C-alpha cells in the first residue's frame, strides 16, 4: 500500500469543525446572517414558489461506513483509517427489506471505502438477488490495490454487473495527489487498468465505469462534457485507460472542504460564487427529490451531505427499520446554505450535473 500523506480527519485532530453544530453555525452566519446574500430557503421559495419536497424514491444511497484507506483533503465525510463506524449486517438486512418493499431502481453504495466493510460482498450479492435494477459502488480505486484481499474486486464487480463510480480529480499526478494523498494517482491508474482488463469502460460491454471529478480547490467544476472529453483523451493517450462517463461534482462547503475554505481565506468568496451561480433549472432537479440516504447506523437523511451535518429527515420515522413507501410522498426537505452547492452552475448531484 502506498504511503499517503499524513492528513488526519477533523475528528482525530479534535477540530471544532468535527462538531456539526459548529459547521451549521458557520453556514448560517456571515453573508447570510447580515442579509447580504439570500438564504437558500428564500431563494427556493422565490424560484419554485414553494419549499423543496421529495417526489419519489429512485435512489437508495447507503453509507456502509466512514472507514477509508485514504484521507482526502476535501472529504465531506471526514473519512479515514481512524474512523471505525461501520454498518452492521443487521442494518444491511433492513436496507435489503427497504429495497424489496420499495422496488427502488438504484442502490448506491458509498462510504468511506464501502469495500472495507467486512459484509460488503455479501450485501452486494444479496441486493443483486433482490433484483434491484442498478447497483452503484463508489470506489476510491486505491482500495483495489491497497491489499491482496481486495485485488479481485474488479472480477467481483464484473460478476455482479456493478456500476463502478470512481473518484479521479485530475489526469495529472500533481493535482490528484495534492487532493487525495501522495501515491493516490499511481494506484488509481493501476486500479483503472485492472477494471479495464475485466471489461469495464469497454463500450461493447455492459460494465459501466464512470469517473467522478471534483475541483481541487475553491472553484466550481467546468462544463461536464468538456471535462469528460479532456479526461478521455488524456487518460487514453497517457495510460490507455478507457471509461464511460464523467460526473462533475461541486465541492459542498462542509466538513474538511469547509475547513480548507476557512483556512485558505476562501470561504466568503466561495459562498458568493455558489450564490451567484444559482441555477433555477438545477434547483428543479436536485437529487434530494428522489434520493434517500441511509447512514451506517441506519438513520435516514435527504442526502449524504445532510447525513454528515446530522440533519435527519423531516419525519417521525427516522430509521431504515421504519421505512414505508409514503416516506417519499412530498416530504419537506431539510436545507441550509450548503445546499447552494447543488444548485450552482449546471447543478451537482452524486450523478454529476443535473441540467
Amino acid at each position: 500500500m502506498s504511503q499517503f500523506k499524513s492528513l488526519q480527519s477533523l475528528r482525530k485532530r479534535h477540530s471544532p469543525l468535527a462538531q456539526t453544530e459548529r459547521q451549521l453555525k458557520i453556514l448560517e452566519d456571515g453573508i447570510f446572517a447580515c442579509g447580504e446574500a439570500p438564504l437558500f430557503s428564500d431563494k427556493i421559495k422565490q424560484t419554485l414558489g414553494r419549499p423543496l419536497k421529495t417526489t419519489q424514491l429512485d435512489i437508495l444511497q447507503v453509507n456502509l461506513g466512514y472507514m477509508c484507506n485514504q484521507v482526502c483533503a476535501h472529504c465531506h465525510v471526514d473519512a479515514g483509517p481512524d474512523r471505525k463506524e461501520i454498518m452492521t449486517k443487521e442494518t444491511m438486512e433492513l436496507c435489503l427489506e427497504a429495497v424489496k418493499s420499495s422496488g427502488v431502481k438504484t442502490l448506491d453504495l458509498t462510504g468511506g471505502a464501502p469495500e472495507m466493510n467486512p459484509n460488503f460482498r455479501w450485501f452486494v450479492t444479496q441486493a443483486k438477488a433482490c433484483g434491484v435494477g442498478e447497483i452503484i459502488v463508489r470506489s476510491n480505486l486505491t482500495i483495489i490495490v491497497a491489499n491482496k484481499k481486495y485485488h479481485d474486486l474488479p472480477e467481483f464487480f464484473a460478476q455482479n454487473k456493478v456500476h463502478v463510480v470512481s473518484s479521479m480529480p485530475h489526469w495529472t499526478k500533481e493535482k490528484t495527489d495534492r487532493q487525495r494523498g501522495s501515491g493516490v494517482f499511481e494506484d488509481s491508474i493501476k486500479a483503472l487498468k485492472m477494471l479495464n482488463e475485466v471489461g469495464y469502460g469497454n463500450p461493447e460491454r455492459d460494465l459501466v465505469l464512470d469517473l467522478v471529478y471534483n475541483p481541487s480547490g475553491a472553484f466550481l467544476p467546468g462544463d461536464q462534457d468538456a471535462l469528460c472529453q479532456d479526461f478521455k483523451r488524456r487518460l487514453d493517450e497517457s495510460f490507455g485507460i478507457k471509461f464511460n462517463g464523467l460526473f462533475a461534482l461541486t465541492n459542498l462547503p462542509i466538513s474538511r472542504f469547509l475547513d480548507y475554505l476557512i483556512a485558505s481565506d476562501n470561504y466568503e468568496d466561495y459562498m458568493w460564487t455558489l450564490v451567484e451561480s444559482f441555477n433555477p433549472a438545477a434547483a428543479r432537479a436536485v437529487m434530494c427529490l428522489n434520493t434517500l440516504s441511509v447512514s451506517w447506523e441506519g438513520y435516514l437523511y435527504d442526502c449524504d451531505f445532510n447525513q454528515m451535518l446530522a440533519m435527519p429527515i423531516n419525519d417521525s420515522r427516522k430509521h431504515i427499520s421504519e421505512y414505508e413507501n409514503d416516506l417519499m410522498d412530498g416530504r419537506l426537505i431539510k436545507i441550509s446554505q450548503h445546499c447552494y452547492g447543488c444548485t450552482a452552475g449546471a447543478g451537482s448531484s452524486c450523478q454529476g450535473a443535473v441540467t
Partner: protein
Amino acid sequence: MSYYDPKDLRKFGRITEWSETLGEKFFDYYNSVFKEGALTPREKSLIALAVAHTEMCPYCIDAYTKDGLERGITKEEMMEAVHVGAAIKSGASLVHGVMMMNKVNKLDS
C-alpha cells in the same frame, strides 16, 4: 489602500444600471465572444488570461485564472499563455529598437 477591491468584480453587472442599453449590449457581446466557435471556450479562456496580463487587469486575472481552473486547465498551460502575452508585450517594446536604430543611422553619420 488599493484602488482595486476584489469585491468590486461582483458588482461589474451593475454597470447596466446607469446605462441599460449599452451595458446590455456589452454583456451580450461579451457572452457571445466566449461561446464555442471556431475556437473552443478552453482556447478562448487561455487567450483571455494572456490578455488579462498584458492589460494588467487584476479583475480579469482573478476571473480567468478561476475560469481556467474550472476548465481543468493546468498551471503549466496557464503560465505558457502568460508568457505568450509577455513575449508579445516585450517584443512590441523591442521592435521599436528598429526605430532607434533608424534614427541613429540617420543622425549619426
